[in-house]
């Protein structure tokens, strides 16, 4: 077996085992039954990833060395708990429509397109060891350090020379890298890249399953998944190793659970809680998503679901932030100068906001105008969908923040726009694809019949 395929098979085996453990854990988060099967598959990948990161954190906080035994013990404990506290009631109100009317040729074509997107991203992700600067400087550096040191050394938070690695960023992804490396027995930054196509596939499966459960036709769900699978600004070799792909996956799970929670679906608050914690543990944008969801709740929640949904949205994300703060101290957001919010700086702030929006328009949005215009058309052509609207609102709040926050960037608004805006916006794509498909549901049905 080649030098690459051996560790790649090892990582594949670890992901299979962790996802199998996640499948057992999923009993505590999703109802049983056919309408939930695809989503359960995707959630299993997330829960397996959480286990892989969590067993490292638990081992580090005790005296144990991270290895198969603590991982399997944690997985077994989680599986046992999920048997005690399962989500029992199946949600029969939102089942997939019986039988689809679209032709099988269209379905085959869309499935082939979808598979093509998955294969092309797998090729991009697995061509070479992960190499992008943010992987090397932040996520990979920390993961490799955790693995090499068998702990979390203080220098990552204290040394000025390591400030570029952003001590203030959440540690979920580096812990996950270290977790897979501990189980593999080595830190192989080429084989670890397999995580990314797996997260892409899990994202697509959840997208498809959720849309089907919400009554969207098979061909429309496949179209949305196929489009997303080929979304190069997110699924690229460059972003492999960075936090956007897992964040976009966690954001989709958050969004779908958020909709479910507001419609009283069984187990939805639990799903929302774990997705909120996962998103906040991956990137600061994940924490902002929880805050944005709270704002949406103030506008849209019904009285009977409000308090439970607020708790499931905010508490887990807040807990993740609090634990890191207690363990490693308060770390300032070094990239930003919040002094610009002082009234005496408002003039300067307004100028910087203009620069941020101007650079975003001219260098990020205008070059992508045909795609953005097409997106605007499919959003406008859709019909009202409560969940679709909520997801668009969440994504819109995220996009608004990403457009405005460069105004307070220490290195200048244009710098942050150029280095980060396109990829942070790209991470919203799964949420937007889901929202658009939900809104197109009624428009699409006559198209399918006619095809």
């Amino acid at each position, binding site marked *: 077996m080649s030098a690459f395929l051996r560790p790649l098979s090892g990582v594949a085996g670890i992901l299979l085992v962790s996802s199998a453990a996640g499948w057992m854990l999923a009993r505590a988060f999703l109802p049983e039954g056919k309408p939930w099967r695809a989503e359960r598959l995707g959630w299993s990948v997330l829960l397996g990833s959480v286990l892989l990161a969590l067993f490292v954190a638990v081992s580090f906080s005790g005296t144990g060395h991270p290895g198969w035994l603590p991982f399997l013990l944690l997985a077994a404990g989680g599986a046992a708990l999920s048997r005690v506290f399962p989500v029992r009631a199946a949600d029969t109100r939102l089942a997939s429509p019986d039988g689809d009317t679209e032709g099988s040729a269209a379905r085959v074509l869309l499935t082939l397109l979808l598979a093509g997107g998955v294969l092309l991203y797998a090729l991009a992700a697995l061509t070479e060891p992960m190499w992008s600067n943010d992987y090397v400087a932040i996520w990979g550096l920390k993961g490799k350090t955790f693995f090499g040191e068998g702990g979390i050394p203080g220098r990552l938070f204290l040394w000025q020379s390591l400030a570029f690695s952003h001590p203030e960023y959440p540690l979920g992804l580096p812990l996950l890298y270290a977790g897979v490396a501990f189980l593999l027995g080595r830190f192989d930054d080429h084989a670890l890249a397999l995580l990314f196509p797996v997260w892409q596939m899990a994202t697509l499966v959840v997208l498809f399953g959720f849309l089907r459960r919400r009554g969207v036709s098979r061909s429309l769900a496949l179209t949305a998944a196929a489009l997303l699978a080929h979304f190069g600004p997110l699924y690229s070799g460059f972003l492999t190793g960075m936090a956007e792909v897992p964040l976009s996956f966690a954001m989709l799970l958050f969004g779908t659970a958020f909709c479910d929670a507001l419609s009283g679906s069984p187990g939805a608050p639990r799903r929302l809680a774990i997705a909120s914690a996962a998103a906040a543990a991956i990137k600061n944008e994940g924490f902002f998503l929880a805050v944005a969801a709270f704002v949406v709740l103030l506008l849209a929640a019904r009285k009977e679901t409000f308090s439970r949904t607020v708790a499931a949205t905010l508490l887990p994300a807040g807990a993740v932030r609090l634990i890191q703060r207690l363990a490693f101290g308060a770390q300032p957001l070094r990239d930003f100068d919040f002094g610009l919010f002082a009234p005496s700086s408002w003039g300067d702030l307004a100028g910087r906001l203009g620069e941020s929006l101007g650079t975003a328009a001219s260098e990020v949005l205008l070059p992508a105008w045909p*795609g953005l215009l*097409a997106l605007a058309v499919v959003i406008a052509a859709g019909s009202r969908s409560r969940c679709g609207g909520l997801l668009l609102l969440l994504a819109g709040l995220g996009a608004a923040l990403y457009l405005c926050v460069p105004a307070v960037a220490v290195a200048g608004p244009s710098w942050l726009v150029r280095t980060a805006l396109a990829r942070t916006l790209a991470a919203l794509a799964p949420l937007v694809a889901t929202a658009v498909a939900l809104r197109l549901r009624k428009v699409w049905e006559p198209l399918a019949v*006619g095809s």
Partner: protein
Amino acid sequence: VTARRAAVLLALGILFFQLFSGYAPEVLLRRLRFLRHYASQDLVVRRLGGSGAAFDRNYVILLEWARRRLPPGTKGLAVFSGPIPVHGVHLTLYHFTPVPALVEPRRVPPGWIALVYGPRRPEGWRVLTELPHGALLDPAGSPVGRPLEPE
């Protein structure tokens, strides 16, 4: 077909076209060739042949030689790389992890050794190992924390 449905179909067609036009056949072929050529090679060789080392492959070759020749128990490594891009600085620290490293520090911390890229050999520093494109040196014989270059 109503205008609304036609607009949806047209917009979806544009989206598909936009996304597919992002693929460059020559890039796909280059990826396949890379995988076929390097899959049987060691991980380090794959990194050396990849995008991350493209800024200066000789420098990355030196990093790998130095990593393999680091004396056991090395407390830290001061790397004197000369001018390299910021990605090179980050890659240097990543490459030696978990051994702490600094790139172009003003002084070598006590107990650390140094890696110098290129032919420079600072006076008073003991050469531990000559390597391709550089050398590992021990500044211990010189005053602690002596700067590599005159300040």
